[in-house]
């Protein structure tokens, strides 16, 4: 399982490279050794596989986004969403990938077998995949990658992926050059990590001390991948340039249609929108809902909107006396008109969330749940019942011992939507006698305040999660994890513990679906979060880009199949 905290504020930095020119060598010795090999292999491959005579081939595709590809193509150290997308679909390859329905299908691994007892997976690799410097991608690369990401020294940020796997050299065995075995304890959706973790080149990184991987030039200065696009240049905070890989296996579609793909970093959204409207960029990753109409109104552009994997929530700190009672938390949720907020803030591009199970998940069926709808009357009644009444006539309820039903809602600086939520909640909750005070905190500080187990310096916090395909709330609500960073709510509910444990080991989907439904019912009753909404993912795309597929898997999922309308080039 894996989730990523989403910040949603301006770009989060990182990366490096040189100035100008093609595949400019950084003066780092590693890069100087590696890049000529890439150059040579590419030239050779181009000669061997000339570009097919098809008008769809050619042109430069430009994608603009607010953030850097933090940590670059080094899959062992990064968590950033756009970065992992580039690792999975642009520069590197994963063992498997998902079809639009979320079913695993072969990619770098041609096929795989699972041992009957569920403790071993054997991957059979393709034999026609080459690193961009000409080395073949083989089982040793997979073994190396597995050992690296499960080694604590690497400090792989998504170490939780491998919770149920045998870590280190014991967890992986090379059978032959193209066959590799991975050992695990049986658990739900055990294939998911292999969709997410891109394979790294053992022949280049094998000798690097694992605690030095983070500062190794591979990631941002001279990545050598094996995916459909070859790294050509990286100007930090400015652009990444990739070129079509002529050696990409024909069986996987051969070289991509576009010659060059440029990822541009433009931190200011108004500038991004202008660049899209003036056709300097072809794709604008994730414009705000307020910009959507401008894109729709332009005949050359198309607004893509689709359900995605992230959701926004208000996490309640149940250690606080005001928020300790689940009835109070439910009343707060019922006193907040989330449907209206989705309409107003997201301009309808989103759906109200009741739990953290997103639309693509097999257990997603909100109509089967006892959803809490906007009902100020019932909210007031619930608060009365819980003993919170306005005893002194100041418009804010108090408990019998005089505690006011008043709390702060924190959110991070520079995030308009969260600020919007805080302000609307403040105004709507006042109507049911609850005083919520929006309080903005700088992102890094906020994380420290909510994540540090000894601190937990917040009452309510507006924050978002990006869910991976495997959803797992154990870190959030299991009482065993109460001293871990993400136990914001401080939930201690034996029923929830039992269901989370059961879910994590249930491999069968129909059985799991029932468990999930039961879990969600308890969760709604417990209401550790007020789940807000699943925003739709928006993208502005120039109509000259054809065959674009964007869905919950991400924007880049089939980038190698995109082509530019020949009349536009």
């Amino acid at each position: 399982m894996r989730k990523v905290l989403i910040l949603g504020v301006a770009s989060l930095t990182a990366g490096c490279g040189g100035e100008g020119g093609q595949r400019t060598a950084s003066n780092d010795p590693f890069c100087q050794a590696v890049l000529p090999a890439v150059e040579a292999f590419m030239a050779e491959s181009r000669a061997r596989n000339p570009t097919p005579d098809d008008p769809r081939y050619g042109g430069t595709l430009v994608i603009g986004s607010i953030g850097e590809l933090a940590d670059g193509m080094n899959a062992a150290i990064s968590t950033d969403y756009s970065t992992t997308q580039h690792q999975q679909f642009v520069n590197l390859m994963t063992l498997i990938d998902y079809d639009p329905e979320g079913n695993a299908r072969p990619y770098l691994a041609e096929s795989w077998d699972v041992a009957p007892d569920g403790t071993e997976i054997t991957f059979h690799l393709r034999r026609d995949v080459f690193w961009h410097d000409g080395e073949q991608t083989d089982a040793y690369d997979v073994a190396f990658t597995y050992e690296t990401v499960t080694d604590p020294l690497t400090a792989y940020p998504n170490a939780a992926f491998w919770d149920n796997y045998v870590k280190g050299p014991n967890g992986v065995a090379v059978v032959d050059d193209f066959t590799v075995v991975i050992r695990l304890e049986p658990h739900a959706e055990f294939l998911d990590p292999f969709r997410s973790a891109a394979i790294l080149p053992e022949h280049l990184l094998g000798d690097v001390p694992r605690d030095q991987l983070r500062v190794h030039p591979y990631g941002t200065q001279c990545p050598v991948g094996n995916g459909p696009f070859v790294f050509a240049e990286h100007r930090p905070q400015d652009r990444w340039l990739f070129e079509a890989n002529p050696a990409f296996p024909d069986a996987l579609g051969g070289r991509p249609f576009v010659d060059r793909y440029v990822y541009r970093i433009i931190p200011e959204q108004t500038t991004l929108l202008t660049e899209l409207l003036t056709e300097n960029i072809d794709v604008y990753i994730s414009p705000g809902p307020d910009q959507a109409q401008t894109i729709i109104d332009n005949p050359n552009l198309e607004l893509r909107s689709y359900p995605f994997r992230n959701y926004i929530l208000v996490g309640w700190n149940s250690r606080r006396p005001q928020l300790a009672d689940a009835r109070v938390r439910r009343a707060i949720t019922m006193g907040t008109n989330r449907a209206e907020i989705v309409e107003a803030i997201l301009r309808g591009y989103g759906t109200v969330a009741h739990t953290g199970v997103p639309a693509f998940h097999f257990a997603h069926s909100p109509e089967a749940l006892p959803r809490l709808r906007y009902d100020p009357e019932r909210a007031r009644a619930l608060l009365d019942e819980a003993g919170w009444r306005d005893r002194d006539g100041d418009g804010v309820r108090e408990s019998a011992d005089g505690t006011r039903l008043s709390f702060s809602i924190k959110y991070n600086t520079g995030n308009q939507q969260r600020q919007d939520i805080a302000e609307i909640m403040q105004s709507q909750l006042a109507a049911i006698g609850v005083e919520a005070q929006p309080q903005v905190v700088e992102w890094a500080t906020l994380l420290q305040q909510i994540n540090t187990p000894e601190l937990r310096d917040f009452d309510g916090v507006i924050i978002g999660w990006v869910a991976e395909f495997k959803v797992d709330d154990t870190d959030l609500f299991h009482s065993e994890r109460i001293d871990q960073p993400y136990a914001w709510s401080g939930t201690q509910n034996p029923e929830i513990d039992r269901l989370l444990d059961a879910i994590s080991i249930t491999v069968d989907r129909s059985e799991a679906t029932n468990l999930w439904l039961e879990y969600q019912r308890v969760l709604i009753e417990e209401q550790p979060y007020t789940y807000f909404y699943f925003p739709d993912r928006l993208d502005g795309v120039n109509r000259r880009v054809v065959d674009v597929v964007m869905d919950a898997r991400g924007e880049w999922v089939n980038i190698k199949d995109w082509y530019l309308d020949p009349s536009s080039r």
Partner: protein
Amino acid sequence: MSSDVGSLVVEHHQGTSRGGRLLSAILPGLPQLLAGRWGVGSAALLTWVGLLWIVVARPSRVASALGGAWDEQLAVGTLVVGLSTAWLWSWRDVAAAHEVKRVGVSVWELAVRAFSKNRTAVAGLLVIVGLYVIALLTPLVAPYDPAFQGDLLRERYVSASAAHPLGTDQFARDVLSRLLYGARISLLIGFVAVSISVTIGTLLGAIAGFLGGIVDGVIMRFVDMVISFPRLVLLITIIALFEPSIFLITAVLGLTLWPGTARIVRGEVLSLREREFVQAATALGFSKTRIILRHLIPNALGPVIVAATLGIGNTIVLEAGLSFLGLGVQPPTPSWGTMVADGRNVLLNAWWLSTFPGLAIVFTVLSFNLVGDGLRDALDPRLRS
């Protein structure tokens, strides 16, 4: 220390005294206007009519404000003071119509005369005074509560209409009301931050200049250090690292602005120190504190006032810049900076959101700068022709 440098005949030109008085009693400023004195006449008349309009149009609001929060009471106070000032000034002005006075002309009076000749500067001053008056009156004037959210589904992003003269924002809040309340925050931040910096800068500058030696060296090295570092980077570092509150922002803005003032004051004091009256005070055995506070600082004040006026403008712009980086005054408190920054993403489909506060900033800061320039010219005899 003002010295007479000459004298001058000041004449008042007006119509008949009796008619003028009657007119003045009803519409202060009109007699002056009729006599061709456009500036003072329209200022008095506009003040009178504008303030009276509030009383007539919003009697209930005024009445309830009397027993309301402190800012509402302050607004009523402003109303009363403004009305009586306009009326009394006009009355006395008309009454004094035919008196011819001989007045002494001090350096300050000369400066005032030079300043009042500078039409753009006077216009700037009027705008500023008007802004502060409106900021004080906001609770009586603003059509809505700045935090009041209308119907989120139907009243968001509504362009200008009778109900919302400047449109509404993403929460269906009235932009005009927020603009008015924002004026209070922006002007307050500017004023307080500059007050802090002027106080610190003047004191340290005077001490450095007067005492000299090691004290001077230490203070001025520190000044060099703060001045030679990009102020914005310093501000971001401090504000980003801690929680941005109005208090922190104002304090940090004030605490990073003073070195300029300190330099100016030190320079002035260094030249004043050699002048006779200071020498005399020293010879008479006055304490250093007394000499600094009573003799040096008042005399070095001219350039400080100029720097302060320009500083208020800069501070308002800087606050807007911090808001752009998400480090300004935090919502729901409306400051102009936050309004501009928040509205910029919808510049193309709801331009009024960031344009009006943007223009408000530009014209306010412009006014401060015009006044500052005018003051500089007026106080600097070398620039007068």
